[in-house]
């Protein structure tokens, strides 16, 4: 029991550290990638290839002056970014980061909490994500912030539906809500082969849920100044910006887990390696997949222009939702016939 608790605590610490580290360096990669796409260098002054840039940015955010509007609701103004950060970090608890690892005769799963409702848990946490933004936007007592918050929340509520329906077809196929079980079933064939449409819908919705371009209307500079975080400065602003990158990392992890076989690596079992090596290689391979999707997120951002608000709603309600329903029906028919 004690060994189990220690292992889980260490695992939680590692995952927390990794999420923060990856989110930190994703900011640098984003700027470098934007530079690459726009045919320029990107940040390259701090350290070799700008490797210290995130550290400088972080230090700057920490030491900047803390400013709070006079008319703000003090408690909620602080609660907003904290809640956003908390919600962003909570989801990683149910993602299976690897297979089983054997330490001194004990077999440990590289998943912090395995339950029979993993996917629903992710949904519950995602639906809580709206509050951080809404509370922050409202508590600032600023018209632009409030409009940004209202936009963000209506966008997130609208796209949650299509997202849930697209996953429902995957759940129907797997017959389970447990993520580790879903990954286990993908050992021979990844889900993307059966559910390409669900993947496309899910990915589009993930872009909207993380408020990334082309759906970054909540912080549309041209119309809303900074959107819901207009009145925020210093590390509170840092939390909002940072949680976007953590969300991106977690969404990529969920996409890899649901559609791309999670920690499964093709032909790994033919090599005859020991269990621990296979597990660690699998985890490394999962991270390769995650990094690929993070890059895809960035690629989309620097390629596509921003949607207009009515277009966004139209896409969500009249395209993605019916498509997801159709996919659900087709999945059901195929399951009955096969």
């Amino acid at each position, binding site marked *: 029991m004690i060994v189990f608790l220690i292992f889980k605590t260490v695992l939680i610490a590692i995952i927390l550290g990794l999420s923060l580290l990856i989110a930190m360096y994703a900011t640098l990669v984003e700027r470098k990638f934007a530079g690459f796409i726009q045919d320029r260098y990107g940040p390259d002054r701090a350290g070799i290839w700008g490797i210290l840039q995130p550290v400088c940015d972080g230090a700057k955010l920490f030491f900047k002056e803390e400013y709070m509007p006079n008319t703000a*609701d003090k408690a*909620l103004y602080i609660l907003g970014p904290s809640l956003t950060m908390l919600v962003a970090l909570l989801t990683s608890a149910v993602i299976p980061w690897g297979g089983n690892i054997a330490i001194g005769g004990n077999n440990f799963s590289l998943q912090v909490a395995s339950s*029979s409702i993993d996917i629903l*848990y992710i949904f*519950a946490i995602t*639906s809580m994500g709206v509050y951080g933004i809404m509370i922050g936007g409202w508590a600032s007592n600023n018209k632009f912030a409030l409009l940004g918050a209202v936009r963000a929340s209506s966008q997130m509520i609208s796209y949650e539906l299509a997202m849930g329906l697209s996953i429902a077809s995957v759940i129907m196929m797997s017959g389970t809500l447990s993520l580790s079980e879903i990954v286990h079933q993908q050992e021979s064939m990844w889900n993307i082969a059966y559910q390409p449409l669900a993947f496309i819908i899910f990915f589009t919705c993930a872009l909207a849920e993380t408020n990334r371009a082309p759906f970054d209307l909540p912080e549309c500079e041209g119309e809303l100044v900074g959107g819901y975080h207009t009145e925020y400065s210093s590390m509170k602003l840092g939390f909002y910006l940072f949680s976007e990158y953590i969300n991106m990392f977690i969404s990529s992890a969920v996409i890899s887990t649901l559609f791309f076989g999670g920690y499964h690596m093709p032909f790994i079992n033919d090599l005859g390696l020991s269990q621990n090596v296979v597990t660690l290689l699998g985890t490394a391979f999962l991270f390769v997949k995650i990094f690929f999707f993070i890059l895809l997120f960035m690629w989309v951002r620097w390629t596509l222009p921003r949607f207009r608000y009515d277009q966004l709603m139209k896409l969500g309600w009249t395209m993605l939702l019916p498509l997801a329903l159709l996919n659900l029906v087709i999945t059901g028919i195929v399951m009955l016939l096969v």
Partner: protein
Amino acid sequence: MEKYIFFGLSGLAIFSAIMVLVSNKPIHNLLYLILCFMAIAGHYLLLNAQFLAVVHIIVYAGAIMVLFLFTLMMLNLNLKLELNKSLMARIVAFVSGLLLLVTLVIILNGLVIPTPKTATTQIGMTRDLGQVLFSEYMVPFEAASILFLSAMVGAVMMVNKNK
């Protein structure tokens, strides 16, 4: 262990429920209500009703309360609730509240609360719940879904009528 979690959650639920009544900013009331829902979801988890717990969060805290918050923010109700009721109204409110208290005390006095079967019951698991819903309670379940559908269509109709 479970006992301490139970008392912690109960305390949180009662505290937030009282704060919903006491706090005089509408947005704060709403957030306390969400906290209360969270505590109740924790109780469901203790009863091994995982599906119910998560759906409770998704539907109530995640969807319905967001719409409430939405409305409150758009209306920007920030006025302090002042006690400007007439003496008559206050007396009536006091008496009816007292009557409710008496009724509750009488009911709860004769009630033997059965000890909840924790961790042994499996009905809260998604699979078991689904099987029961789609076999034994098929007709009421479908009837409820049709009711929801008609409510949804009605809402759309009402919006379109004003255009």
